[in-house]
């Protein structure tokens, strides 16, 4: 894969916004990969958690905003518990979701779910899905 690293991308407001919303220092990451090794959802992801951090450091805005992974992460916090540098990866992923959600780009449209899909889903599931995946 050919990638283009540029000062312009790294200094983009996008990177600062991720750091601000997540409260994390992205440059603390040294790519050990423990977050991805322990993540129970990697099999469903297109960009792995350690790659999300690297892409965020480099300002790869389009790749991150279009990625499937940010909607696969269920904030189980295993990555946070295992990061040797104390980075809260789940918070970084939340920040990327928030950047989209704050533009009213909802990921889940509950009104489109059929009655059989909704089934007997408990309120706790519906509310948390709405809280994480809608604006």
């Amino acid at each position, binding site marked *: 894969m050919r990638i283009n690293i540029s000062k312009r991308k790294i200094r983009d407001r996008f990177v600062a916004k991720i750091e601000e919303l997540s409260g994390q220092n992205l440059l603390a990451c040294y790519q050990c990969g423990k977050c991805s090794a322990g993540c129970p*959802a990697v099999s469903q992801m297109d960009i792995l958690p350690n790659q999300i951090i690297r892409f965020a450091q480099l300002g790869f805005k389009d790749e991150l905003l279009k990625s499937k992974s940010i909607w696969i992460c*269920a904030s189980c*916090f295993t990555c946070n518990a295992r990061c040797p540098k104390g980075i809260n990866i789940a918070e970084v992923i939340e920040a990327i979701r928030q950047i989209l959600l704050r533009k009213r780009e909802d990921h889940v449209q509950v009104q489109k779910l059929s009655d059989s899909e909704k089934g007997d889903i408990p*309120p706790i599931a519906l509310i*948390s*899905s709405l809280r994480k995946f809608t604006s």
Partner: protein
Amino acid sequence: MKISYYPGCTLKNNAKNFEDSTLCSLNKLGIQVEELPRWNCCGTVFSLATDDLIHHLAPLRNLIRVKESNSDKVMTLCAMCYNTLKRANERVKSDPESLDKINEFMYREKVKYKGDVKILHLLELLRDEIKFETIAQQVVKPLKGLKVANYYGCLLVRPKEIGLDDVENPTILETLTTVLGAVPIDFPYKTECCGAYQTVDKPDIVAERTYQILTSAQSQGADIVAVSCPLCAFNLDHRQQHTVKKYPEFKHIPILYFTQLLAIALGCPEEALRFDLHYVDPKPVLKEKGLI
């Protein structure tokens, strides 16, 4: 002993079996449970964005209700409520400026919140206040021969600052099931996420997680899996319907709340167990072991 109780939404419907078995058990243990008046939704998830203060209002308002009922301690059963209430509380305790802002948002509340309510999960109440030794003395029907895989999920143990046991290898449920006379089974998936709210729009992911978690427990010889979160319970129990479609060789396994095991051991009647709310019927295995 009296304790304030915050139930949360799901305990009043899908997880009525969790609530009823808890209330019966605590009654047997001589604990007076007082449900908070005017409680509201806790928000279900703790807001992770640094600037998102508004979503901390819901959990903190419930803590104001605790103060209003002249208490400074509240017990909750649901792992999501526990996590959200406790994290919101820790958040404002460590950041007085945001606490002031949040109190200003809630200017109509008569009590100004100071971050001084202690949030206890039922497991902590059983371990630290009632004590497992006392419970052992009250067991009237030991769960002899029942092999239990204890599943913690995420929110009782992570993040470690608020977790009620070791972040990687919690053992509180194993200790409790041993006290109740059952045989705890160790398995590597006990703190691995069940897929949580992905169950709403991506049930396939949950069916896959359920398959991994439950077949691991089965391979270690578990008769049942014990849980402590209503969302885990839904995913591991009701989503077995999806799992078996994906993996036809999958064999169903009953999922019980740890409080249902406690209730059986303490001699609660079957009405308190509400097995009608389960997808996989736990009665055959419990009958086989002579427990109901």
